[in-house]
């Protein structure tokens, strides 16, 4: 008997768009000797002491479940970390959940707060998972587009204009993937006024908090009146170079915590015990290494931004994360054409901007989390590519001084 699989599948799941990044990954993965600026993760290997603490925990036999919310020892370290680094205070017993990466934390947050049809504002260009996670939880993602005019920063006015009666929450990601833009305390304070005026919840993805270069990072939960309405999401992937560990955490008022914990315990039970023990070491003893990685990214950012501008690919200076998001409009190509042709002709992988939402069209995401040697070679090839496209001479006159 022939099965009608369409009939079996969930309508919501069927309607999800496949990630645009997937298609590009398949193409890039099929080629050899590609220099990749397409990677969304640190080029550093997890600091050795974290790896060693994890190995030790295995030797000692820590192979059982932990509490649903995570090891208390780790939750205590997380609360100390959030308090000392960002000035936000949580109770480890009933406000912190250790999750399988920050992605699970975002999923938990949306599942916990959304009812069918609730709208969530998503500042675009945005990380590829946000909108689908809202949809999976029954909500409706509403894009708030930003532009390079003010460095891809969302303003209070833009947010207010997008709010409807159905708006329940807003997702903020600062420093941002893919633009690297970072909201200052003053900018967040203005946004916070609108959020309070319309009684919204903020899901704040702060995974790149440790990678802010020019100004101190400000958590939205630290702004007056915001603590009560913020679900703070962070993790170990980016700052501590622990992407493959899949360890994140969320911090929120007790009422949010209780609902999110219920979902967490039914879906995953807990994050792996031995990895959580490694994370304790990360928070206790690896800050000098985090700082040294941050300094290394900052120097590479300076190099990449100025070099792209010099070759005529207009690029704002991002305040954080490890991405630059230059405009490729001067080439007359769509972001997908640009990325595809660059890959085929020069073997450099970048991510076309449109995969991060409509407002990403006309841009490409380049990650500078790769060695200086690779960056120099990749930029040389990009320059050769755009010279062949014949835009070099024209764009010199539009050169933006990023210093």
């Amino acid at each position, binding site marked *: 008997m022939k099965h009608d699989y369409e009939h079996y599948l969930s309508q919501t799941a069927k309607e999800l768009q496949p990630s645009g990044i997937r298609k590009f990954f398949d193409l890039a*993965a099929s080629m050899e000797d590609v220099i*990749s600026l*397409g*990677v969304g993760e640190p*080029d550093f290997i997890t600091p050795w002491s974290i790896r060693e603490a994890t190995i030790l925990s295995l030797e000692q036999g820590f192979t059982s479940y932990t509490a649903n919310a995570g090891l208390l020892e780790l939750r205590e370290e997380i609360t100390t970390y959030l308090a000392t680094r960002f000035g936000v205070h949580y109770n480890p017993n009933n406000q912190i959940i250790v999750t399988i990466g920050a992605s699970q934390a975002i999923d938990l947050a949306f599942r916990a707060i959304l009812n069918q049809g609730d709208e969530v504002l998503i500042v675009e260009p945005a990380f590829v998972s946000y909108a689908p996670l809202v949809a999976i939880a029954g909500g409706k993602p509403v894009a708030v587009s930003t532009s390079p005019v003010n460095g891809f920063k969302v303003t209070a006015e833009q947010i207010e204009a997008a709010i409807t009666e159905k708006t329940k929450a807003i997702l903020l990601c600062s420093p941002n993937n893919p633009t690297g833009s970072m909201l200052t305390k003053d900018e967040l304070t203005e946004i916070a006024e609108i959020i309070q005026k319309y009684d919204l919840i903020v899901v704040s993805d702060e995974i790149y908090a440790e990678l802010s270069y020019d100004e101190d990072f400000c958590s939205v939960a630290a702004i007056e009146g915001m603590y009560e309405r913020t679900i703070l999401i962070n993790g170990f992937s980016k700052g501590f170079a622990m992407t493959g560990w899949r360890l994140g955490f969320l911090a929120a008022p007790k009422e949010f915590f209780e609902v999110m914990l219920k979902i967490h315990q039914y879906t995953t039970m807990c994050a792996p015990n031995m990895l959580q023990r490694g994370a304790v070491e990360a928070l206790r003893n690896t800050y000098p290494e985090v700082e040294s990685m941050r*300094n290394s990214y900052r120097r590479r950012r*300076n190099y990449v931004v100025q070099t792209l501008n010099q070759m005529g690919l207009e690029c704002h200076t991002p305040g954080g994360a490890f991405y630059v998001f230059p405009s490729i409009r001067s080439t007359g190509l769509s972001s997908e054409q640009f990325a595809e042709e660059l890959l085929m002709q020069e073997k450099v992988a970048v991510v076309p901007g449109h995969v991060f939402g409509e407002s990403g069209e006309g841009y490409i995401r380049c990650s500078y989390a790769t060695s200086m040697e690779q960056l120099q070679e990749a930029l040389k090839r990009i320059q050769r590519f755009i010279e062949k496209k014949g835009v070099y001479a024209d764009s010199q006159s539009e050169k933006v001084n990023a210093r």
Partner: protein
Amino acid sequence: MQLSSVEIEILKIIEENHKLSVESIALMAMCSEETVRKTIEKLEYEKIIMSYPTLINWSKVEGQEGVIAMIDVKVTPKRGVGFDEVAERISRFPEVSSLYLMSGAYDLSITVEGKTMNQIAAFVSDKLSTIENVVSTTTHFMLKKYKHDGVSFNSGNDDKDRRMVVSP
């Protein structure tokens, strides 16, 4: 010597990779190429930048393996000049690649590099031991280098990029 933040930044960049061009260093440190050039000249002149050594794993080159020994030396310090005079004298030998004054069971720690074991033996017996004030020497031959000046010699694995080509 008090250095400016830009000078320290330049030092850190070339400490990590001294092969970078002046142009790249200027872009990374957000200063002019002229500043980079002048800073490097000044720091070389002040002997803050001492040299630009190249770390070569000679054990991988056939016929060039060489022998390295670390020698613990006990010395009778001299009135007025302490250990400095004898240390300086020893450091002048071209065979000596490093020399430190140590606390503990012995006084000087010397690293000696030679082509053969015999060459090092000859240095110890003919030159080092015969220096006045040298009381005793203990020679340890180095068998294998795992890490030197912060660089791992053995683990090719850590340098390998295991990441996927594109990821979100």
